[in-house]
Every structure is written in C-alpha cells, then in structure tokens.
C-alpha cells in the first residue's frame, strides 16, 4: 500500500471530519466573545488556547476548516465545470479557430497575476467568501482547460476514437463517452492539487482581508489577526499556520498517492 496515500488521506479526512463535526458541535461557541479570557496559552480548558477575543482556537480551527474546504471545493468545482468542457471542446475542434481562441483566452488569464485579479475582483464586488471563490475559481479554469485539452489530444489519435467515429458518433458524444472517462483520473489528481492550492489561496486572500468576512471563521484571517500577537502569544499564529500547512500537505500527499494509483502509465510499470 502506498504511504503517501495513507498519510494524505488520514490528514485530509481529519480536517474534513473536523469541518463536518463543526456543524454539530464545537468545544466552544465562537460567536460569543470572552474578552477577559483572551490570549490564553494552550491548556486544559482550551486545548489550543484562545485568541485576542478569548475565543477557543480549536473551535475556530474547526469552523475555519469548513470555510477553507468550502471555498476550495467550490473554486475547484467552478474551474472543473468550465475548464473541462472548454478543454474537451478545444480538443474536439483541434486546430480550428475556436480551439485557438480558447487556448489564447487561457493564456490571457494566465498572464494576469492571480493575486492582482483577486484583489481587483474583491475591489469591484467587495470582500466576501463568494468573491474569493470566484477569484480562485477563475484561475482554475485555464488549468483544467489546458490539462483536459492536453490529455484529450493524444486520445483523439487513438484507434478506439477512430472506431467510434467510424460508427458515426459525433464529437460531443465521443468526448463524453470516450474522452472524459479516460481523463477522469487525471482530473481527480489535478483536482486534489488545485484543491490544496485553493486552500492556500483562500488563506492568502483572507490574510490580506479579501476573503471570508467575520464572524465566519477563516484560517487566513486568524493568521492576520495574530500577526501582531506572534511575539506575545505565538500559539495564535502557529496553530492556524500549521492547520494550513497540514491540510495542504495532506492534500498534496493524497494527490501524489492517487496519481501513483490511478495513472495507468505508472501502474504498468509497477505490475
């Protein structure tokens, strides 16, 4: 069995479980503040200590996991839902003007520094989790479009696609029936990686105040709130930092593990 896969799955599932659990229960209510109890170091009452408003950091982390996961999942979802069909279309019409337009459009998005666009988007529509999702999602579109096109092109040269064409199937139908299932693994692996990047991006946006707004908990904002407290209450910065690190690490390991398992090329080597 694959070590990466296990560690990655365990880390990821832990955070997902935390996020799930937070719907039912958190150690403390993070919506009520307890200012006299602020900045307590980790201890028996508060496993991971309290923040500058006296909120329980463990509870904040659990709620923050929810935000991070939701933002990242939706952003990757947007990227996939738009990017994959675009990529399939470009591959089906390879060499055509449409293909060229799609690919140049992708290049154009890639040419915009992502953070700058995120800042502009939030400047136009205001800072909120939804806009963070859109901003991150936009940058996932070309990733998936390119990947899809890149993976679909060689498939279009394969004989079984020719066979399907001989059977009179339309390009759209072939894309759905033959191309899509065969690139799904790749999408899953890339999805995991984009997911981890989404978590990082959400944290970065929230850190500069452009992500989820209070009272929604967010790891990035916890870090932003903690930045002046590092020297007096280091746990306030260390805990959310490690949460991000571990979640992203988990997802990356999971992605690597999945790639090893799902990528047929590697599987052939193994057996």
């Amino acid at each position, binding site marked *: 069995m694959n070590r990466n896969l296990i560690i990655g799955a365990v880390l990821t599932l832990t955070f997902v479980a935390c996020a799930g659990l937070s719907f039912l229960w958190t150690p403390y209510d993070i919506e009520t503040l307890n200012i006299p109890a602020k900045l307590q170091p980790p201890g028996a009452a508060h496993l991971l200590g309290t923040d500058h408003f006296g909120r329980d950091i463990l509870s904040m982390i659990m709620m923050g996991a929810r935000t991070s996961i939701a933002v990242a999942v939706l952003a990757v979802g947007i990227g996939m839902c738009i990017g994959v069909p675009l990529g399939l279309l470009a591959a089906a019409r390879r060499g055509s003007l449409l293909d060229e337009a799609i690919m140049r459009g992708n290049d154009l998005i890639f040419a915009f520094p992502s953070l700058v666009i995120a800042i502009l988007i939030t400047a136009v529509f205001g800072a909120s989790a939804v806009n963070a999702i859109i901003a991150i999602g936009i940058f996932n579109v070309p990733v998936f479009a390119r990947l899809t096109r890149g993976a679909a092109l060689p498939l279009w040269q394969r004989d079984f696609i020719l066979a399907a064409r001989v059977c009179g199937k339309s390009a759209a139908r072939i894309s759905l029936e033959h191309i899509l299932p065969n690139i799904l693994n790749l999408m899953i692996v890339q999805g995991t990686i984009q997911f981890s990047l989404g978590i990082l991006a959400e944290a970065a946006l929230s850190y500069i105040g452009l992500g989820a707004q209070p009272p929604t908990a967010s790891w990035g904002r916890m870090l932003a709130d903690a930045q002046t407290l590092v020297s*007096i209450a280091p746990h306030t910065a260390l805990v959310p930092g490690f949460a991000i690190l571990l979640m992203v690490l988990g997802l990356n390991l999971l992605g690597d593990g999945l790639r090893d398992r799902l990528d047929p090329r590697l599987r052939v080597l193994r057996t």
Partner: protein
Amino acid sequence: QDSITVAIQLEPPNLDPTGGAAQAIDSVLYANVFEGLTRFDADGAIIPSLAQDWTISEDGTVYSFNIAGGVTFHDGTTMDAEDVKFSLDRARAADSTNAQKGLFAGITDITVNTPLNVQITLDQPNGNFLFNLAWGDAVIVAPESIADIASNPVGTGPFRFTDWVQGDRITLTRYDKYWGDTPALETATFRFIADPTAAFAAVMAEDVDAFVGFPAPENLPQFQADPRFQVLVGNTEGETILSINNKMPPFNDMRVRQAVALAVDRQAIIDGAMFGLGTPIGTHFAPHHPDYVDLLPNSPFDPARAKALLAEAGFADGFTTTLKLPPPSYARRGGEIIAAQLRAVGIETEITNLEWAQWIEEVFTNKDFGLSIVSHTEPMDIGIYANPDYYFQYDSPAFQAVMEELNATTDPAGRSDLLVKAQTIISDDYVNGYLFELAVATVAKADLQGLWVNQPTAAVDLTGVSWSE
C-alpha cells in the same frame, strides 16, 4: 546626535496640505514645513504662529493680523501679507480643491494693509475662526512655488523638504534661515509603515527612533517592559462612535437606538479591540476638553434593558441590519465585538469590510448602511450633528438652534454652556453609540524628548524634539 527617523502609519499621497484630506500630509508637514497664521500647541490650545498678534473688532467680524517680520520661504522669497491673502483666497476660490473649504466659508474680504498686516472680514461673528486658521488646510503658501506643491512643498517652517522616496520615506532638513527658534534636529526622516507586524518589527529592531501612532496596542506592554523604549499614550480628537443611520427604520425609533447603545459594552471593546487604550465617552466630545460632560450613565451596559426596549419598539425577536466597517483596526476588531454584543440582544448584523473609498461612497455619501464604526478625528466637530444631511442623518431643530447660537457667541462662558447643552442633547437622543475617545500611542527610544504626547491635530511636530545627553 541630531537626526531622527520617525515612523508613522500612512504615507501622504502628495505633499499639498491645502489640496487633499489625507491626514498623513499634515503629519509630516504641519508645523515642520508649513505654518499658518495660528497653530495648535501640544495640548490643542490655539497659539500665534506667523501671526504674532491680532485684534478683533467689537462685532466680531473683522480680524486684523500682525505678521512676523523677516519670514522667508524655503526658496528664499519673503513671506508677507500678500502671501497670506493669496493662500486664503486660493483656498476659498470657487475652483479650489481644498478639502476643508468650509473653514473659510464665512470670509467675505481679505485686505492687505501693510506688508506685515492683513485684515480679514467675516459675514458674521465666528467664535471658531482662530481655531479654523490653525488647521493644516489653512497654511500659508507662496504663489511662486504653488505649481509643484504636491511634490515639492515650499513653506516657512523650521524644516525644508529634501527628498521623498515614494512608498518608503520623506526626508526633511533644518532650514537655516528660519525666522523662529532653531530646532535641535538637523535632519528628520519620516518612514511609513502601516502594517502592524512590520511596525512592531521595525521598532524592535531599532530601525526607527520613534513611531507616532503605533498601530498595534497589543504590543505596547512589551515596549513598556523594555528599557530601550518609552511609550507615550496620549489623547486625540477622535471620537469613536457606532454610527447609526437615524433615518433608516428601525433606527428612526429612538428606543431602538437606545437599545443599541445599551447593548454595547464599551470596556469590552476598549479591551478587546484596543487592548485597553482609549477613554469611554458618553457623547460626541473629547473628554480632555474643559467643557466635556460625563454622560456615560446615560448609556450603561445593560443588555436586559436593551432587550426590553427592543420589545417595546416591536422587535422582541430582534432584527437584522448591516454593519459596514472601514479599514482601521478599531473598526474591524471593534466591529466583531459589537456584532457579538448586539447578537446577544437579538440584533443580527451582516459585517461588510470596506476600504475607505468604498466607505465614503456607500456609507458617507449614499447613506446605504445601518450601522458603522468610525472615529471622527477632526477637532471640535460636534457641529456635524447640526447638518441633517450628514451621513447619520440626525435632524433635530433644537440641536441646530444651539449650534447657531454657539457660532454667534464669542463669550467663553456662554460658549461653554452651549457646548454642554449640545452634548446632552445628542446623548439623550441616542443619535449614535458613543464608544471611546481614540488614544494615540507613541513608542520612542528612551532618550528622545519633546515629542507630542497628545494629538490635538494630526501632526508630528519636531520643532521641540531632541536627544537627551
């Protein structure tokens, strides 16, 4: 040692104090590079500056200023009454872009009598006129250098502008031909560090000698405990209020506004958002002002009463409103705390964090808000409550009458009475939630002396600053 590096939070967008609202312009230039006829001293009193003395006519409408002799601008030209006339005329002109044009609204005529005497006529008596002239927006500039004032300011102050590395610092150098007392410092560098972490690090690493308006109160205890530093905590003119849209239902019901006021625990906000820095206020007036009345008992922290009042007003189940917050941390952190406190009495708030530009558009101009938190930093600005179009939309004829009377009164005792009356009216009407008077913290090297403790206006006056030894 005769040089100093002072950090402040914000960089001036340009260096024209007469052409924009940014306080950072004054922070760097006020009293250091530019001077007006009058000025604020460290305690907020109005003292003579370029005008050495003045007389006021019986009816209070004609001011005659005697200007100091031998004053030159940094470009070597002399400063005389013509320059005063030019400066004030320019500020009140129709196409002027002076952000505080209102200060000069009452002026009907400016006459140069002699090169060292200028006479200003007002349409009606104005008890605040000398105070108005002390503002940074009323400093004296020269027609010769006005064209590039934004990037190369030329004034009459003890320091002249030498260099601006945009994004990082501005350097000032002592002006040798200064007409007044020579300052102790030869050069002064202003650095701009808005980020609290960077501010902390810069002071700790002794990259700067002083930080005026240190952005992170939570770090002050560390500096206090460190013998290398001194921490000065002073007061400002910033009344921090939970502003309420008085015209928007349900806030047009005074019981609801009162409930909001009672639901808020000021001390929790001061502790939680400002780490203890700040003085609670019960009305829109600076506590250090001699005419301040303590109206805190008017709005004690009493969530039970707040709930009762809400129920009385027909909101037993509470309601939802918006809370729009500008960038400063008093607003952002305070907003989270207030949201939690209001939630406790049943008022749900949707927090929106805005940039200043958006805040000005949405909240200030379009009045599209329920609640907001902002610090009103202009000195003596209770007059804003007399303007029914002001963003919180308080329209009280009684208050407006008081203000009108105040403007016409020059007798100190009479003014004092009227100010007390004004404070009481807005407190009784629960126009806004009055939170605290913003404090300013200055962290400096232990052997630095002469820095202002208080901030009667946004200024880092370096004229009296020196190193001990």
